[in-house]
């Protein structure tokens, strides 16, 4: 019964939309790649029939829009068929990006939580810092990314750290905003109760504010982990395409390797989904241990 409703309620609609998207993709790749084939045929001095044209549009080397099966063949080829230490392996590039993402995310989460605690406990910090934290979200921070990379390279810091710093910078804002909201979420009546227990500020923090902020923390962690991946990818652009998913994107765009770009995109999407799912699972586990959900 439950499985049937799951099938009808989720799998069927999502599946239908997905299949429609893939079908649309095939149509578009046929339409967009057709001019190239017609040109080749015209140059060879003939015309090309539709039935001849169709399979050719699906198997070009540098198509305008690669067909789905080409992208997945490339994905399979570069993940399973290559040794993961090889520079041609997408797993290797994904790991380069992922390590920067995780390091930056960890630093950003720590910094964000500490800053939020300071803001909640100090009125001057709150009044002077909070407007800037909010204003800074309206600023296109990613624009600074190439400069941070180049400048840190100039003083001899290169490799993982500059990218991780960009991720840190991007991911700590959502966490500060979410955590401040979360640490303030206990109501006055609950704070008063702690007061009647003669609880010290530290006790109030650990027994009331911190547990109450968990749902807010994990919601912002999900946003932060997604955005820190974006930061790591963009951070790989200005270093001149050495390694990582961003480098694959840039190299692909320089050499017109569309299939490679799409494969890197799908890999990035997979990594993002994985990270968000992991944070979601951690969220559920913590809530369960706190007894919030049956």
């Amino acid at each position, binding site marked *: 019964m439950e499985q049937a409703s799951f099938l009808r309620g989720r799998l069927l609609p999502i599946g239908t939309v997905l299949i429609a998207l893939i079908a649309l993709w095939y149509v578009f790749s046929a339409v967009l790649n057709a001019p190239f084939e017609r040109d080749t045929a015209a140059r060879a001095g003939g015309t090309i029939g539709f039935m001849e044209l169709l399979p050719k549009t699906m198997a070009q080397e540098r198509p305008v829009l690669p067909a789905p099966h080409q992208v997945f063949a490339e994905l399979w080829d570069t993940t399973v068929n290559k040794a993961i230490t090889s520079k041609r392996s997408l797993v290797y590039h994904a790991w380069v990006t992922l390590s920067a993402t995780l390091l930056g995310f960890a630093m950003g989460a720590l910094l964000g939580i500490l800053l939020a605690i300071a803001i909640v406990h100090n009125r*001057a910090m709150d009044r002077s810092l909070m407007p800037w934290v909010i204003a800074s979200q309206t600023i296109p921070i990613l624009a600074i990314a190439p400069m941070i990379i180049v400048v840190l390279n100039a003083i001899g810091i290169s490799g993982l750290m500059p990218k991780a710093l960009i991720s840190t910078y991007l991911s700590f804002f959502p966490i500060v905003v979410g955590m401040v909201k979360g640490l303030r979420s206990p109501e006055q009546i609950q704070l008063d109760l702690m007061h009647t227990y003669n609880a010290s500020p530290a006790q109030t923090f650990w027994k009331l504010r911190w547990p109450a902020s968990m749902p807010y923390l994990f919601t912002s962690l999900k946003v932060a982990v997604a955005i820190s991946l974006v930061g790591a990818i963009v951070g790989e652009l200005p270093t001149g395409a050495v390694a990582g998913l961003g480098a694959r994107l840039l190299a692909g*765009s320089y050499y017109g390797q569309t299939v490679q*770009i799409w494969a890197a995109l799908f890999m990035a999407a997979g990594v993002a989904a994985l990270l968000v799912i992991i944070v979601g699972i951690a969220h559920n586990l913590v809530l369960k241990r706190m007894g919030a959900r049956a």
Partner: protein
Amino acid sequence: MNASILIAAVVFWLAAWAFNEWLVRRKFYNPVADRAARLAVPLIFGATILVLWEGIVRGFNVPSVLLPPPSMIWTRLIGSVPTLWADFRQTFLKSVLVGYALGCGLGFLVAILIDRSPFLQKGLLPLGNFVSALPVIGVAPIMVMWFGFDWQSKVAVVVIMTFFPMLVNTVSGLAATSHMERDLMRTYAADWFQTLVKLRLPAAWPFIFNALKINSTLALIGAIVAEFFGTPIVGMGFRISTEVGRMNVDMVWAEIAVAAVAGSVFYGIVALVERVVTFWHPSVRGGQA
């Protein structure tokens, strides 16, 4: 190393900090003075950051290639207004505004279109949520390949980036009304369109403005990063990436300052319109947006 400048900066920082602490603790009974004090605290903090920055850079003689002092950035900004204006026009007025309008409009229209089909909603919503978490910025090289180097490709990137947040937020906003309210509209014999215009759209405005605010930042980021992948010789992203290569860091900072101001003003305008349109919402009536 220039110790006196450094000491002066640190003294200014401590003094401003103390003054802020005093301002926060003091109670103002005059509402105007209270408002002014509330406004002054963050402004003083911002000024302190600038002074500390200037003092540290000059005090420690940090090479301007690494971090130019704010005064130098300001001179550069004043000195190259025509270039900055051309970049601003290319990136902001063409790519960002057009892409933002198209992306948000499309997202809104699609949300209205699938409103009558629960099946499509169930299929599209999880996908939309999923796409929002993806590094969508990665489509930039593909769009540059398809639509060329000029602003059209940046518009395409911005449209893709802003479409999904708008779609997801509008759909959940349209679902925000309760059964009671919809039943009331039914007893009035209101048809689908009337219910939409008179009840469900007004209830959805807070959600829609949430998406508009998120998108105002996303659009600027999308346009700037898309320019890293190829552009004519004008544009904020182009300027940033080339001037970084030529080690003209003060020009980069000037460009970032322009982007920051443009982003904040854009966000501010959206927030202002929100306060006017959703005047009934508790967060506006409470005096805190």
